[in-house]
């Protein structure tokens, strides 16, 4: 890991350079959107897969996480 040139004010540790974070951030954001979509909304308003199996399997999680999606 590279050491940040400008130490943060009163922080425990130096800031992580943005170029180290960016690829992870993009990947994680995309995967998170995908996962939350499948748990929260798939086969409700829209369907990627036909049928209702995805919807039914995560049924209780979807309700109890409070998604207003069905």
């Amino acid at each position, binding site marked *: *890991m590279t050491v940040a040139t400008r130490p943060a004010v009163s922080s425990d*540790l130096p800031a*992580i350079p943005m170029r180290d974070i960016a690829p992870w951030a993009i990947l*994680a*954001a995309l995967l998170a959107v995908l996962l939350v979509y499948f748990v929260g909304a798939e086969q409700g308003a829209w369907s990627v897969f036909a049928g209702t199996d995805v919807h039914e*399997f995560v*049924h209780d999680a979807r*309700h109890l996480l*409070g998604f207003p*999606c069905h």
Partner: protein
Amino acid sequence: MTRLLVLGLLAGLLASVVTFGVARLVGEPALDAAIAMKTTDSHTHATDTPDLSDTGGMSRHLQAGPGLFVGLAAVGVALGGILAISFAVARGRILHGSTRATVAWITALGFAAVIVVPMLKFPGNPPAVGNPETIGARTLAYFAFLALSLATLGPAVSAVKGIASRRRKMLIGAGIYAGVMSGAAILLPSFHEVDPAFPRDLLWQFRASTLAVQATLWASTGIAFGWLVERFGQSI
């Protein structure tokens, strides 16, 4: 950075185990009661509308066990990953406190913007409630509101960056956010689809349990992540 991300994913997984317990204990009774309501209801009303909350041949046991866990774990791990990345961006750049304080701030702001505020405008409904014909509009309005909430958070934080007084900083930031979100809440349509015959205390119990489930998931992800980073993340 890699280690930070691993710790985040791990924290999310640990949190979803805790949340599974709370969901079973607090959420499932309300869910089962609502499903029982629907079953009695469909006997009297026959088949006038397509029933989206039908179990589709899947057993309640499967839905309330493995299904619930997989759903929670997927959301928990995603949350842990996002938390780790937000932490990496914020630490020493936006927030300058200790590890624990930084994690606590991110978790609290995220919980307010992603869960509490959208829930006030679009609360979740138990099975048996909800008009299948409006699901498209409801889902779209909900995700639009959620996206706006997240999009407002960034500018609200950066707008107050230069203000020296901590108290004024927080007041002005919260004011900008509250103003934008109140405007959106007024402009976006509302959906009032709960059957007047549906028991009010059961609806309240269900909605309170969704808040409890989300609060457990977010709080335990934050606590686990803060602890893991302090214990194993010092070399990052």
